[in-house]
Structures are given as C-alpha cells and as structure tokens.
C-alpha cells in the first residue's frame, strides 16, 4: 500500500533518471575512454585535428593497417619491463595482506574481548595513525633504512606497509569481533576450552566475512600505494604505481605516452574485476564503521 502513495511524480522520476545517467557517465566514461584509447597511437589518443579520430583510430589504421594496435602494451610490458613491476606488486600485495590479516585478526579479537581501559587508548592511537598521511611516516623510515642498508628491497617495504595498514585492520576487525556475541566463546570456555581453543574452534569458523572484507581493503591499500613504494623501493623492485609515474617522467620526452596509457589500463583491470566480484564486501566494509557510529 505504501508504494502506491509513495510513487514519484513523473517530473521527479525523470530528473532522477537523468541525474543517474549523468553520474554514470561521469564515473565510467573516463575509464572506457582510456581503455578504448589505449589501443590507438598517440596521435589518435590526443587528436588535435579531429576528436572522432580517437574513436575510429584513423591514424592508427594508417600506421598499422588496423584501427587497433597493441603497440602501447608491447612497449610497456616488453620494452618498459612492466611485467617486473607486476610481479613485484603481486609479491607485495600477497605478503601485506597475509601478515596484516594475521596480526589484525589476533589483535582485533583480543581487543574486543578485553574490557580494560587501555584497550580504548590503543584503539584511539590506531585511529590517529589511520589519519596520518603515510608520507609523513616515510620520512621517519628512510634515514634508518639507509643506515642499515635495507633501503630499496621488497621485505622492508612490506613491513612498512603492514605497519601503516595495521591500525586500520585492527580497528575494522575489532568492530567486527565486537558484533560476534561474547556468549559464543564464553560457552566454549565453560565447556572446558582454553581461550585459544575457543578462538580456534568457535570464532575462526564464523569470522571469514569480516576477514575477507578487511583483506580486500588491505589489498587495495597495498595495491594503490604510491607514496611509500615510490620512496622506499629502488628501480628494479618498483611496484606498478611508481613504475607508471616513472614512465611519465621519461615518456614526455620520447613521445611514447602510450606506454603509460597501456600501463594504466593494465593496472586498472585487476581493480575492475575486484570491484565486480567483491562489490558486496566492499560496500559492507565502507559502511560498517559508519552505520554503527
């Protein structure tokens, strides 16, 4: 019955749909455009003469015989050795996600089950660190790293990323564990489990949704990071994002901006699929802290 009364007037509905269409174009069009353009030559991607060139690829056809070319990708992946960065990103992301989830799960669980006052302060400190720009911390890391001669390699970067990521993971898993009723592990304790057994046999089986969501966000952080990785990694250990920035530095001179375009598209593709498959978890993670707070 409510729907009948609540039906929108025609004008408002039209306005709504119009707005949605405008927003969708604003949100998605840049990606489609860049994806389409990445198969063209630079003169088409940046078409001075006629913007329809970018759609039909006339100059690409003149150069390569077809309106689509993989030249940009070839240049980026083979000539620019982008595959190296891809592997590095994979390594960094994998280890960052694994280690921050391990620490975060255990820590978040313990924090949520302990009623002491200092847990509050620990969480507040975590919140402050979450707000800190990573780059302010980086300047603190660099000098000691040079001293110990561990600058530029992957393990140190992974440790730094885990440390930067930890407050967030802790905060998120803490609020997740608080939603799991205490009675669950208390009854396990009554039945004779130790605290750890209660965690292992009772909590672990029900914690996966929260862990997956948190893991996704850790992954995004490690994947998207530019400030830390560009400062702490040397040239051959670069991950994708600093590698793209480096492409830009050199490509403006050589007129091979298409390398960077192709690299950008390659780096966006995994994110695209990530959002597609884990949309629900991402939405849940974004709203989790908010709706409760």
């Amino acid at each position: 019955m409510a729907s009948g009364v609540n039906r929108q007037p025609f004008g408002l509905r039209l306005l709504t749909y119009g707005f949605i269409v405008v927003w969708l174009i604003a949100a998605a069009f840049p990606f489609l455009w860049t994806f389409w353009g990445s198969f063209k030559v630079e003169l088409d991607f940046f078409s001075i003469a006629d913007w329809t060139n970018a759609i039909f690829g006339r100059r690409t056809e003149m150069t390569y015989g077809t309106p689509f070319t993989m030249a940009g990708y070839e240049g980026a992946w083979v000539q620019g050795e982008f595959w190296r960065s891809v592997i590095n990103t994979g390594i960094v992301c994998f280890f960052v996600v694994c280690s921050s989830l391990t620490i975060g799960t255990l820590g978040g669980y313990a924090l949520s089950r302990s009623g002491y006052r200092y847990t509050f302060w620990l969480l507040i400190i975590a919140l402050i660190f979450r707000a800190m720009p990573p780059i302010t911390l980086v300047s603190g890391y660099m000098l000691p790293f040079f001293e110990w001669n561990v600058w530029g390699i992957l393990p140190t970067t992974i440790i730094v990323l885990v440390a930067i990521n930890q407050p967030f993971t802790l905060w998120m898993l803490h609020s997740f564990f608080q939603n799991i009723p205490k009675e669950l592990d208390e009854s396990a304790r009554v039945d004779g489990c130790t605290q750890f057994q209660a965690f292992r046999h009772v909590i672990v089986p029900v914690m996966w949704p929260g862990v997956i969501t948190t893991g996704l966000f850790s992954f995004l952080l490690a994947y998207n990071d530019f400030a830390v990785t560009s400062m702490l990694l040397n040239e051959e250990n670069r991950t994708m994002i600093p590698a793209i920035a480096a492409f830009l530095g050199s490509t403006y001179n050589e007129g091979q901006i298409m390398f960077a375009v192709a690299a950008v598209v390659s780096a966006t593709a995994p994110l695209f699929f990530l959002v597609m498959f884990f949309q629900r978890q991402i939405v849940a993670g974004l709203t989790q802290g908010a709706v409760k707070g």
Partner: protein
Amino acid sequence: MLLFIAAPIVSVVLQSLHTPHGAVLVEAETCTPLSGCILETTIDQEATRELREAEPLGRLVGFDIYLDRGHLAFAEVAEAWRQSDDLGEFWTSLMNLPFYRAMAFTLTFTFIVTPLMVILGLVIAFAVNSLHRHLKGLVIFFSLLPFTVTPLIGSLILFWMIDSRGILGDALVYLVGDPSFSLKASTGLMWVSLIVYGIWHAAPFAFVVFYAGLQTLPMEQIEAARIDGATRWQQVRYVVVPHLMPLVTFVALIQLMDNFRVFEPIVGFNAEAHATSLSWIIFNDLGGETRQFSAAATSSVLTIIGVTILLSPVLVRTWRDFRDKK
C-alpha cells in the same frame, strides 16, 4: 594474547615517533636545507662523512628548521607584514613562501571538496535508492570505480582527458572559442580541475555510506509524517536528513582527514607549478638527488599537527561514546 596486539602497535608508535624526534632534535649533517647546504658538502667531503658516521641523525639545532624559509618562516612573514601596505600585497608575498602556498591549497582543497562531495554523494544516494532493484547493482558497480581505482591512475586518466588535445580539453577549447585555451596554463583553472577530481574520487564513498543509511530508514516515522500531511520535500527535510545526520558528520570527518593529505592528484596532474600540498612538499624533499631528511621531517611534524587539529572533534566524540558505554 595482549602481546599480539601490543607489539605491532608499539612498533608503529616507535616507528612513527622517529619522525617528530628526527625533526625536533636533528638537522641534516651539513647545514640548513637551503642553498648553503650544497656548498658545504662539496668543500669538505671527508669531514662530512666522518661526522655523518659519528652522528647518523645529525646535529642538534632545536626549532631552527621550523622557523626557516621553507617552513613556518616567521621572520619572512613579519618582514612581509611590515613592508606591505595592504592585505593584498601581504597575501602575495605570503604566497611566495612554500609552506604557506601549500597550506593555502591544502586548506582550499579540503574545505571545498568535502562539503561538495557530501552533497553529491547524498544526491546520488537518493537517486539510486529510488531505482528499480535490478538496476541498483549495476549502478553501484560503476559508481564504486572512481573510488577504488588508484588515486594516481584516476588522476592520470582525467588529466589525459583534460589535456588540451584530450577530449574534454578539446571540448572546452571549442566552448571557449580560444584555440590556445588550456587548463594547465592558469593556477585558478588547475585548482578547479584538482578540486573536480577530488569530488569525483571521493563522492562514491559518501554515496555508499548514505545509501546504506537509507536502507535503515524508519518507515513508521515517514508514514506518520505522510499521514500528518507532510509533502515529499518535507519528509526528506524533517525525517530523512536528520536520520542521516550522524553519517554526514562521519563522512565529512573522514574526508577532511583524507583531503588534507591530498598528494597523488598533484603528481598525476603534473600541477606542481600551480598547486602544492604539505604531503607534496615532503615527497619533494625526500626525493631527488638531495634527500633533505630534516626538512621533510619538519614538514611531516607540521602535517601531523594539522591532522591532529582536524581530528580532535572525532577523538572527543569517541571518548564520549566510550565513557557513556561504561
């Protein structure tokens, strides 16, 4: 069990404390981070290296770096104040100091992007909420894209489009009717494009949060309002918006902090000449041939202070919540 939590946090604390200590007590081996620096190194390599090995953190100079031209620059500010006749002139000379220039952009960016993005997010949430169920998933998927994509990549994609040879830049040239028109040429327009990027990037976050909030709307209240004869607009104004208000504060605060550390778009837009931010200053000091650790650390501490000021309302609120729960 507590060890498991305490250890990483303590390590985070220790590591991050490095920055303030490094900045407050320390200066890079040779000098102030101005041009005198380089001279000294070239003259006395041997002694420098010895000194460097003896004291890796450097010489103790107290607050000198905070007051030099690159940072707070009180002396220069006072000088400018004395010499300029009116506020406009004072402002111009203030904008020549890197710290204040960065501060001006950071604050402008933060305080323009945050409210606009909240409003845009709210409107999108309302619009999507009234869509058909099957369409919603698709729209949410595309809406999330600008937010999940790497900031640097997102800004690069937009930057290529607004390039005067890119499609948007081309369209603008056509609209303005001036073939030499370029967004990159003027400071004001560059700021506008950075701000547009900021809103584009952050609006999905606000949208998703508000959308989730709309799902928990109190239907009874809305019905009651309708029975009392409230128009659609009044329902939104007096029932829905107050219901979403806590979320608005939450989103606004998170975004204040995030926008305050704006950094990647400046690199992506190649906008260093027109707009710098505090984070960018740190990045710039750390990179390149001369790694000016002390200068960067000082900027870091100043940024941290700024973040803390912005964060204080959240902290107070969390503290109150916690106390009430007890």
